[in-house]
C-alpha cells in the first residue's frame, strides 16, 4: 500500500497488514504456503496474498457444508438482521474500502459511490430475507383433498466465481446467496483481491456464523475446476463474461448435476433483484391429506 512506499519518510513505521483468507470464520493462510502479489494497475506490488490450493478449496467446502444447515435454520428475520449488520460494518469502514479501491485502480471520484452502492446492496438483500418466500412460494389448489404447498429452500453450498468488480460485484454475488440460506465458497478476483480479504473482516465482525462465507484468493484457473467438480457443492454462481470459463466449469459441474447460474455482467450497478435469490433456491412441494 501507499504507506509502504512512504514508510521511510514517516515519523513512525506503519504496521502493515497480512492479507489472509477467510475460511470457517477464521483467517488462515493457504495450506500450501504459496503466495502471489497484489498489484496496482501499473504493476507495483502492494501486498502479498495467499495463493490457495485445491486442498484449500476442499477445506472451504467442508466449512461451508458444516455451516449450511445451521444457517438455513436461522429465522429469516435473523438472517435479515445479520445482513443489515454487515451493511453497518461496511459503512463504518467506508474510508478503508475507498482507499483499497483507489489503490486497485478505481478512479478516485468513484470509490465513495462504489462503497455506498455495495452497502446499499447489502441492505436491499437484508430486506428480502423474510419476503422472497412470501412472494415466490405457493399454495397449490390440487383437485384432491390435500393441503399442498410449494416453498423455496436453499440449494445448499454454492461455489461462487466472484465478479471482477472487486467490492460491489463481490457483495452482489454473495448477498443473495446467503440471504436465501445458502453458504458459499467464493473465489475472489485475482486482479483486485484486497477489498475481498478486508471484506472478510467485515463479515467476521457482523455476527455471520463462521463458514457461511468462505473466501479464497489466488489463481482462479487452478481453483475453479476442483470447486466446480466437488461433489459436496450443490450449485455454482459463475460471474464471468468469458464463455469458455463458464463452459469448462459447467462441464465439471455435471458430476453431481450442480445447478449453475451464469452472470456475464461486468457492470454490477443494476444487478439487484429477488431473482438473484430465487436462482439459488430449490422448489419443494409437500402434500398433506385433509381429513379426519
Amino acid at each position: 500500500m501507499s504507506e509502504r512506499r512512504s514508510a521511510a519518510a514517516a515519523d513512525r513505521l506503519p504496521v502493515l497488514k497480512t492479507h489472509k483468507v477467510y475460511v470457517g470464520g477464521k483467517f488462515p493462510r493457504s495450506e500450501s504456503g504459496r503466495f502471489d502479489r497484489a498489484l496496482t494497475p501499473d504493476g507495483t506490488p502492494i501486498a502479498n496474498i495467499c495463493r490457495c490450493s485445491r486442498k484449500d478449496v476442499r477445506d472451504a467446502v467442508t466449512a461451508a457444508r458444516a455451516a449450511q444447515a445451521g444457517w438455513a435454520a436461522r429465522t429469516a428475520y435473523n438472517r435479515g438482521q445479520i445482513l443489515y449488520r454487515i451493511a453497518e460494518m461496511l459503512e463504518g469502514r467506508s474510508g478503508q474500502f475507498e482507499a483499497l479501491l483507489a489503490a486497485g485502480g478505481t478512479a478516485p471520484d468513484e470509490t465513495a459511490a462504489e462503497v455506498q452502492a455495495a452497502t446499499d446492496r447489502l441492505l436491499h438483500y437484508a430486506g428480502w430475507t423474510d419476503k422472497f418466500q412470501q412472494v415466490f412460494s405457493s399454495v397449490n389448489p390440487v383437485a384432491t383433498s390435500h393441503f399442498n404447498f410449494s416453498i423455496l429452500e436453499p440449494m445448499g453450498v454454492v461455489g461462487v466465481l466472484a465478479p471482477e468488480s472487486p467490492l460491489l460485484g463481490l457483495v452482489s454475488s454473495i448477498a443473495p446467496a446467503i440471504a436465501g440460506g445458502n453458504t458459499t465458497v467464493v473465489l475472489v478476483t485475482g486482479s483486485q483481491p484486497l477489498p475481498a480479504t478486508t471484506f472478510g473482516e467485515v463479515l467476521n465482525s457482523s455476527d455471520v456464523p463462521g463458514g457461511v462465507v468462505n473466501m479464497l484468493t489466488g489463481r482462479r484457473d487452478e481453483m475453479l475446476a476442483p470447486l466446480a467438480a466437488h461433489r459436496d457443492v450443490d450449485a455454482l454462481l459463475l460471474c464471468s463474461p468469458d464463455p469458455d470459463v463458464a463452459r469448462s466449469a459447467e462441464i465439471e459441474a455435471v458430476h453431481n448435476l450442480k445447478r449453475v447460474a451464469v452472470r456475464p455482467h461486468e457492470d454490477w450497478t443494476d444487478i439487484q433483484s429477488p431473482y438473484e435469490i430465487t436462482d439459488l433456491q430449490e422448489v419443494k412441494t409437500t402434500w398433506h391429506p385433509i381429513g379426519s
Partner: protein
Amino acid sequence: MTKSTQAAEPETPKLRFGGHDGWGYAPAPESTDHVELRDRYGLFIDGEFVDAKDGRTFETANPATEEKIADVALASDADVDRAVAAARRAYDNVWSKLAPRERGKYVYRIARVLQERSRELAITESLDGGKPIRESRDVDIPLAAAHFFYYAGWADKLDYAFPGRGARPLGVAGQVIPWNFPLLMAAWKIAPAIAAGNTVVLKPAETTPLTALKLAEIIRDAGVPPGVVNIVTGAGETGAAVVQHEDVDKVAFTGSTEVGKLIRRALAGSGKHYTLELGGKAANLVFEDAAVDQAVEGIVNGIFFNQGHVCCAGSRLLVQESVADEVIAKLKDRMETLIVGNPLDKNTDIGAINSRAQLDKIEEYLEIGEAEGAEPFQTSCPVPERGYWCRPTLFLHASQSHRVVQEEIFGPVLAVQTFRTVDEGIAMANNTPYGLSGGVWSDKGAKAFRVTSRIRAGVLWANTYNKFDPTAPFGGYKESGIGREGGLAGLHAYLQPEAAA
C-alpha cells in the same frame, strides 16, 4: 414388548385373492373393440403425418403378449431437421404472433378432446405400455387432460408469471419423454410449452409411441397451426438429435440420470434453457406413531403403482424398529393379495413390465440384491406364460451401501431397512445421490412437517404417496434433476423473465 410381537400372536386365517385358492376374481377385461389402431404410424411434422425420409420403421409391441401392434416411422437426423424447421417457422410466423387468448383456446381444445377420447387413450396406453387399465383410465389420461386445461389458462396471464417483470417465450423446445407415463409425460411437456408461446418437437419413447401419435391426431383435429407441435418417433439416436439440435432454444428431458448427465454436458456453455427430470430412489419413512394399515397401503401404492416404473417411486422402505415386524408382516400379507397379469383386466394391480430390456434389468437387480446379502421375499401369485412379468418383491435387511438401496431399479422391488431415531431415519433417507421425492408416515402433525422439511427432495408426501396434480410443481433435488414441471414453477421453465424496466 414391542407392538409387533403382540400383533403377530393371533394366527388369523389369511385371505388370498388372485384365483389360485378359491377367492379368485372372474376376469373383467376392458372391451377394446372401439379402439382404432393403424398398422403403420408416421412422424407428425408440420401438421401432417409423414414417413421417415429414409423410410425406416421400428415395431411397437404389447409387453403383455409380446405381439407386434404397429410399425412406426424411425426419425433420422434429417427428419429431426425437418421437424425443428417446422417448429421454427411456426414460432416465427404464427404462434408468437397469435393473441394469447386465442393460443389458450387451442390448448383448451386439446384438453377437451383428450377427455372425449379418454377411454380409447387409456386402452391404447395399457396395450402399448403394459400398465393396468385402472391406472391408465383413472390416473394417466385424466391427469393429462387436466394438465392441458391448467396450462391453457396461463396463456393470457404470462404478465403474472414473474413478479415485477414481463415474460416472453423461449422459442423452439426439444423434448424427450420416457415410457412409464407416455401420454401424461407428453402433456407435462407440451402443455406448458405451447401455452407459454413456444413451439415443440417431442420425441416419445420407442416402446410407447402410440398415445403420443394419437395426441398428434387430436392436436391436428383441434386445428392447432401446423408446426406448433411436431412429434418424431425413434430411439435414443432420435432423442439425441432433438436435444442437440442447434436451432432448439430449450431442452426438456425426462429419463435416466445417466442420459440426463450426457445431455447436460452437451448443453454446457450453450446458454440454452433446460429442465431435466431424472431418476430417484425415494425413501418412504414409517414412524412408530403411524397409522399402520394406512401406511401399508401407502407403501404398496408407493412402490407397486405402475409396476414400480415411476421415477418418484417409494423404492426404499425405512421403518422404525419398534413397529418393523408388524409393518413388514402386514405388508407381506397385503402384497399376497396383489394380482399380476393382463393389463386390460380391471382387477389387475400390477401389469406387464414395459419391455424385455427392462425386465432383464430388474432381474439383474434381483440377483444383485441376493448376492449382496439382502433377504428376498416374493409373492406367490401366478403370472401369465407369455409377456414380461415381475412379482412384487421385497429385499429385507438391506444395508445402506447395497446397490438395491442406492440405485434406481425401476421395477416392483422394495428395499427394506429399519431405523431407531428420527434423525437416523432422515439421515438414511438423504443418503443417496438422488432427491426426487419422499414419504413420511406419522400421525403426529408436527413431526410430519419437520421430517418433510429435512428431506432433501423436491416432492414430499406426508401420509399419502404418488399423488400428482397439474398445479403442484414436481421435480428433483441433487441428481434427480434440475427444474420443475407443474404449477407456476413449471410455467417458468418455458419462459424468460424480461429485463427490469
